[in-house]
């Protein structure tokens, strides 16, 4: 399993290159119109990296509700491995109870998400802008701790 570590300023290039927006899993690198990468500073967001491979972003962290949004992006490394590593960090290091993530409905990555314990919760119409159209997306949730 890849080892994630906290963001450093030298990781700025990787973050900008890999980030495709707050999607649960994305691979292939940012295109020219990708949204700006998240701000790695501050208490609402944690950016974790595997150098030269990918990033895992936990944002909208709420330590009262013990939830966060999780987005993982790789350049060409297996994104599912990075997602698995991020789930361990979210549960065992950040003590979150669950994480949620967004995938366009029907995305090819949803089988991999389900294999890691994610459950499809809600489908939101018109949630993702893709190729000139607003397409539905599903919020997936992974429980990390039942307490």
């Amino acid at each position, binding site marked *: 399993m890849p080892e994630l570590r906290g963001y450093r300023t030298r990781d700025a290039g990787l973050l900008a290159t890999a980030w495709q*927006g707050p999607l649960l899993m994305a691979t292939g690198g940012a295109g020219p119109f990708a949204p700006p990468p998240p701000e790695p500073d501050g208490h609402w967001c944690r950016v974790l990296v595997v150098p030269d491979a990918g990033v895992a972003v936990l944002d909208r962290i709420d330590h009262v509700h013990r939830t966060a949004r999780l987005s993982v992006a790789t350049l060409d490394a297996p994104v599912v491995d990075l997602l698995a590593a991020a789930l361990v960090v979210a549960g065992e290091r950040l003590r979150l109870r669950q994480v949620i993530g967004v995938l366009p409905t029907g995305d090819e990555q949803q089988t991999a998400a389900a294999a890691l314990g994610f459950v499809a919760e809600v489908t939101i119409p018109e*949630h993702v802008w893709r190729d000139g159209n607003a397409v539905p997306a599903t919020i997936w949730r992974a429980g990390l701790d039942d307490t």
Partner: protein
Amino acid sequence: MTPEIVPCTTAQLRRRLELLTDHRMAFLGRDTRTDPVAMIEDWFRYVRARLFTAGDGLFGVVPNELNPHQAEIDIAVPGASAAEYTALLGAAIRLCRTHLDLHSVVRIEPNRDGRAAHLEPAGLRPIGVLHGCRFQDGDYHDQRLWWGQTA
């Protein structure tokens, strides 16, 4: 008379957040009962929320990073009647269309309260729940979501 939905000044925001606290009303993901005002303001900056006055309360819009034509919204108006909520929310959703070019909106329930009853008359429909995602009154609760088009 069409209710006015206008941008909120910092002073107005603080007064209205205090009013929401007095009425135990959560707003746009924040629990006014436990989050200090500075923390709530920081959250609004973080999610790039646009905040408007709505009657004596607040209407908020958080852009969706994945689709510029959709946003998360919330409305909290202490003491408002059902008719007032329908009028204010209708005006707010029209503003989303006419001034923010939003085609659809999503409302994610912050804490459970009676506001849910006012959403469907304003054109929002329930689309599901996030199970166990909200800690309230000593336990984890499901968080309901609504969605609607602005026109």
